[in-house]
């Protein structure tokens, strides 16, 4: 085979996949940036160039800032807590522990189920008055709480669901990493008489660093991508207390049908993901020093 024909061959193999990749990732990404500079086409009026007007509107839109702030707190809570829990889960399931199979099943099960299905169960769980959580609170003499209806509690309530859904997924990656660690570390630690915590902090944790960075990036993306439970449980309410960026974008785009503004919101989301991407790039660079 000649060189040129090998090139053509390769391009032909790539072509079908790239039609879809470009068509639904790159082309819409660029299209969104252009749309964000245009007005929303209405009946009889085509979209016209409006410059940064959509961004101007955004900077004065309290609902946008609320969604951004909520998303920030949502990320700040879900990421460290789900990572810490997933490490604990992986360490337990990796040890010789009574009921390993059951533990692994319990931790991992929320991950396989549809978020929209489990969100329904959680609504039931949170129901004021007779939901299980309130029944337990009642036993200890606390007043019944309307978790999803109280602006003070709602964001926390949906954050718990996200952590519950995610932790088991991250556990799998830690488990995989733990299985690749050589047993001789542990033997050495036992001979030296190192405690469980010391062994984790000085040996396992540093060796798990690449996995942690990987999980961190995943958790960051998920924090800006998870909206299924918001749609099912609170619809962003009460009083926008649980509105997240992607949820707000969905609302603007498909309830208010304001394409120009929704595109500007998408651009913000793309910017955040780009920052996450760069972060990963630099951390990937740094972590090679571990090897």
């Amino acid at each position, binding site marked *: 085979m000649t060189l040129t024909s090998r*090139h053509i*061959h*390769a391009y032909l*193999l*790539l072509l*079908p*996949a*790239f039609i*879809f*990749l470009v068509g*639904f990732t790159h082309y*819409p990404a660029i299209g969104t940036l252009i*749309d964000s500079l245009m007005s929303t086409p209405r009946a009889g009026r085509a979209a016209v160039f409006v410059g940064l007007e959509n961004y101007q509107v955004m900077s004065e839109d309290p609902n946008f800032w609320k969604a951004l702030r909520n998303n920030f707190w949502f990320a700040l809570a879900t990421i460290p807590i789900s990572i810490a*829990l997933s490490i604990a*889960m992986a360490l*337990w399931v990796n*040890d*010789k*522990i*009574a*009921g390993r199979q059951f*533990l692994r099943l*319990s931790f*991992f*099960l*929320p991950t*396989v189920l*549809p*978020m*929209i*299905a489990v969100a*329904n*169960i*959680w609504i*039931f769980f949170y129901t004021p008055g007779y939901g*299980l959580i309130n029944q337990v609170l009642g036993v200890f003499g606390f007043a019944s709480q309307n978790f999803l209806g109280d602006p003070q509690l709602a964001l926390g309530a949906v954050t718990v669901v996200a952590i519950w859904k*995610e932790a088991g*997924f991250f556990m*799998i*990656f830690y*488990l995989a*990493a733990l299985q*690749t660690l050589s047993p001789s570390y542990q033997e050495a630690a*036992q001979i030296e008489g190192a405690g469980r915590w010391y062994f984790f902090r000085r040996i396992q944790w540093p060796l798990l660093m690449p996995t942690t960075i*990987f999980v961190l990036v*995943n958790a960051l993306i*998920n924090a800006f*991508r998870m909206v299924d439970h918001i*749609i099912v449980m609170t619809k962003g309410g009460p009083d926008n207390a649980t509105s997240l960026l*992607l949820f707000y974008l*969905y609302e603007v*785009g498909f309830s208010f049908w304001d*394409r120009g503004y929704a*595109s500007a919101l*998408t651009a913000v*989301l793309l910017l955040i*993901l780009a920052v996450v*991407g760069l972060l990963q790039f630099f951390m*990937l660079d740094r972590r090679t020093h571990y*090897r």
Partner: protein
Amino acid sequence: MSIMTTPALPTKPATAPNRVATSLGQPAGLLSTLGAWVLALCWIAPLLYAFWAAIHPSEFATKLIWNAPLTFDNFIAAWEAAPFARYFLNTTMLVTMILMIQLVLCTLAAYAFARYEFCGKNILFSLMLVQLMVMPEILIVRNYQTLSQLGLVDTLFGIGLPYFASAFAIFLLRQTFKTIPKELVEAAMMEGATALQVLRHVYIPLAKPTYLAFALVSVSYHWNNFLWPLVVSNSVESRPLTVGLQVFSSTDQGIDWSIITAATLLTSGPLLLGFLIFQRQFVQSFMRAGIK
């Protein structure tokens, strides 16, 4: 859920033996075991609670009494209250269609990245990886426009379309293809096999575990996918289970919790059953998918 790739971990050969059950850590202390069990019970409690509500008459949904009568009526009522049979069919067709097309397209692309040298290879590879971070549902507004220009809104084909090429699958398969020894390929070439025959008879059979891993990830992802189908589907004929369940449980017509939980368990049923049966393969393929 998004799955990224972590190249820094040592990659095992595609046929790595199962190590989940073999390499156990140290014995856990009593306190540690207790902690693990408390957390595990918290984790599974919502599902057990849902199960309780679904198999008892609704007056016992919130009363945990030991001898409450069992019933299967909630499942029957849920099944009859909404066209779940049609939703099941839709989801099954959707998931199958996406997986089949993904396997074909991504195999071809992965083969090109693994075994060909061509201009712009690195740029194209980086462009492909962008999809790991920017998934089609982030660009939902613009993708919806594309779909309506194609006249595919409210069709199963339209729901699947943005997912036909998966950067994750291409990356995963490329990694596997790269581990296949050159000698095997050269031997096949000597026999006069064409490039596609080599792919068909050497690469694909040797990458079977990777295909299985990806299939499990893809099926569970698309079975559970919600936001994009919610926006695109508009009728019973194109609605997948997740959207059907949402339509069913959000119509506030006095449906009681027992029936909603029954419907919820129904929709997750096949995945739940599949997971219980293939638990080990499932966990392993997620692990494999993540660490490759």
